[in-house]
């Protein structure tokens, strides 16, 4: 039975090697370059951690909803409106006050963006996958329109806001160039630990997990399941908004059309790979972040960036097989 897991792993590896051979690059060299690009130097590490930050938070957003039995595909949209709202506030209110208000605005925007999906799910039984995908579309067009209109920096050709000055940015917690760690990453780690504790130790966390694990049993156990669904969707959106706000205020310093390269969608994979514990988000977000960083350096060798998605996809397949085995074995 372990054989099946081994076979899938080997098949996955062969697919990666095959893809590399097809693109005309020696596989060992490409994979070594991928690893070097992600972890090979201090600046590589800094880049990997930077890529990991939004994935960690967006992954937590998906994870929390998933625990409540909801598949929040809308983290992408929540992240985008969160980023936009935070930058809009910071453009108006500079300095540390702006950073605090902007972050809160991002959280509120993300929560607001999830609210309709939560309401429709809880009280009209409309499927959250459909509603959140639709809200993603709205977030995308709305933010593009705003950044091409009222929020646009007139001195720029492309639809982007003005760059925030350094005093209106989330600072690095530790900085010894080329290595640095931003406060945003630490905030993500703290939030994950807090969520893990909350899910395990509080009545509200217990009731959220019960709702996700067996809706009917939760109802019979006195859990207000509709309220739980609504609030876990809103909380998930708030964390998604926070992910966007941190990405904007810590790293990008501005908002522009096409702000997210798909963090919200990658975070679906991050959350699924994480398994049942929030701490599983750490390795899985790091894996995604490392591949994102590493894949930019193998582009130089002529390997398409999309290869990192191939690897991620295969990683999820292998993980699914392993987990399936574990659950099957219980029977």
């Amino acid at each position, binding site marked *: 039975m372990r054989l099946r897991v081994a076979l899938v792993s080997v098949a996955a590896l062969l697919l990666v090697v095959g893809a590399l051979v097809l693109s005309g690059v020696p596989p060992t060299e490409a994979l070594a370059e991928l690893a070097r690009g992600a972890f090979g130097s201090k600046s590589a590490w800094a880049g990997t951690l930077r890529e990991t930050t939004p994935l960690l938070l967006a992954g937590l957003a998906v994870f929390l909803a998933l625990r409540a039995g909801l598949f929040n595909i809308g983290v992408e949209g929540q992240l985008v409106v969160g980023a936009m709202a935070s930058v809009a506030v910071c453009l108006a209110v500079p300095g540390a006050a702006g950073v605090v208000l902007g972050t809160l605005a991002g959280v509120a925007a993300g929560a607001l963006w999830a609210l309709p999906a939560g309401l429709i799910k809880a009280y009209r039984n409309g499927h959250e996958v459909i509603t959140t995908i639709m809200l993603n579309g709205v977030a995308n067009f709305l933010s593009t329109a705003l950044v091409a209109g009222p929020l646009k920096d007139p001195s720029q050709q492309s639809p982007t806001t003005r760059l925030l000055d350094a005093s209106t940015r989330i600072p690095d917690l530790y900085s010894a160039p080329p290595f640095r760690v931003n406060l945003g990453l630490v905030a993500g780690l703290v939030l994950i630990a807090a969520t893990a504790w909350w899910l395990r*130790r*509080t*009545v*509200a966390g*217990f*009731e959220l997990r*019960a709702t996700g*694990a*067996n809706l*009917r*049993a*939760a*109802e*019979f*156990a*006195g*859990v*207000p399941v509709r309220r739980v669904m609504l609030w876990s969707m809103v909380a998930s959106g708030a964390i998604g908004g926070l992910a966007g706000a941190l990405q904007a205020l810590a790293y990008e310093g501005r908002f522009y059309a096409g702000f997210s390269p798909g963090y919200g969608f990658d975070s679906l994979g991050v959350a699924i790979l994480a398994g049942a514990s929030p701490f599983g988000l750490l390795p899985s977000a790091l894996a995604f972040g490392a591949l994102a960083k590493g894949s930019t350096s193998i582009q130089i060798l002529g390997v398409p960036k999309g290869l990192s998605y191939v690897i991620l996809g295969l990683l999820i397949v292998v993980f699914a097989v392993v987990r399936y085995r574990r659950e099957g074995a*219980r*029977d």
Partner: protein
Amino acid sequence: MSLAVRLRGISKRFGAVRALESVDLDVEAGTLHALVGENGAGKTTLMRVLYGAIQPDAGSIEVEGRARRFRSSREAIEAGIGMVSQHYSILPQLTCLQNLMLGAEPGAWIAEGAAVARAEELAARMGFRFDWHADASTLSPAGAQKLEILKLLWRSARILILDEPTAMLSPADSDALFESLAQLRSEGATVILVTHRLPEVMDHAERVTVLRGGRRVASMPVADTDARGLAELIVGHTLERASAEPPGSLGEELLAVQGLVVAGYRGDDAVRGADLAVRAGEIVGIAGVDGSGQRELFQAVLGVARAKAGVVRLFGEDASKWPPSRRLEAGLRLIPEDRHEEGVIDEWPLLENAALGLQRVPPLRRGGGLDPGVQRDVAERAARAFDTKHGGLRLPMASLSGGNQQRFVAGRALQLGPRLLLAFQPARGLDIEATRRVYDAIRTLCREGGAAALVVSFDLDELLEHCDRLVAMRSGRIFEPPPERAKDRAEIGRLMVGAA
């Protein structure tokens, strides 16, 4: 007479537990053979060995005279064996026809007309009727059971294993089931019936095999024994008569239902103006055939079903507007009808399942948190109450057998100060001994703890034996016999069916 099944020396261990020890079983072709024993006696395990779902450590299997070694259920099905487990495998999202064919489709392309024709033919043979294109979610428990049996016939099974088939059925539906099984046997099929209900064995089986602690302790024609003799073989000692001394003086009214109307899930009213009062110290049983509104009454008392009209008073207060959580906090406890769907979370450890439904009850709830010490304590006491056999409180609920899950759920309902216990078929899947212990514990709770219990069962004998008084439910209304006839079988039966 030829043997349909011949098992010799079947042994199976799970870790340190010896589930089966050198068990023999002979089943004659064309007969109904009953397999009885307590929870954990090995009945289901033995049947799963025959069905190829479990590989035995030792022993041999012969089916219709041929030695067999099944590596999977698929091979057992090919050899003509079919099994319906305790948990139905009907998928509610699929239609009846799709469920019937699932896993045994006639080909890659399904000719729907031909499939329906064959389904109709099988159903007609058994005297069943189905709307083949309706969702299976619309099926009653009896309908689902019938569909399960047709699934076996669809797969051309000649040897049918039924594990507790009547656990969810009303007496009328059970009778209909046994008529269908008689019909099947007259066509040459063999039936192995796993059951706790000895009257069924006495009325319908030709032979009976008794398992105890993983060993076969007896096998004989049913004509050579009686229900009492069988019961003693099952538990291994002489049974004491249940001590159903009448309650002393009753206390305050803990539950009062007045003019209650509750919608059924199909839109029409399932409870139509029910009145009932339960006072501290008493165990009240609700008799009635399945679907008379018992389910909706319970759900309205718990608060998960909304009352369209009427009042529910709990512990002296109007609780009609209370959410379920407040009712549970006030001391309402539940042994739900469908343990699987309503009572436990399969993949959660016992430790967490112990808190389910009690999570807001102090001292388990402390501030906004769950007290880990109290939680462990509750879990240990819930498991100990009826000797739930488990491998550790951190193992998932799904690792327990059905009967042990039921013991745990019943034990949990007694924790943290219960004042009113709602028990829906509390003995479902339990053996004689465990059933008696559960009712004894409920009685102690009511007599000494000042609590009360409301019990629904479709087994009138069980209610008569264990409850202080009975009421009957029919067509959404409650009918109370005159006090002096509150345990009169004929009177209750009359009220159940509405005869004048």
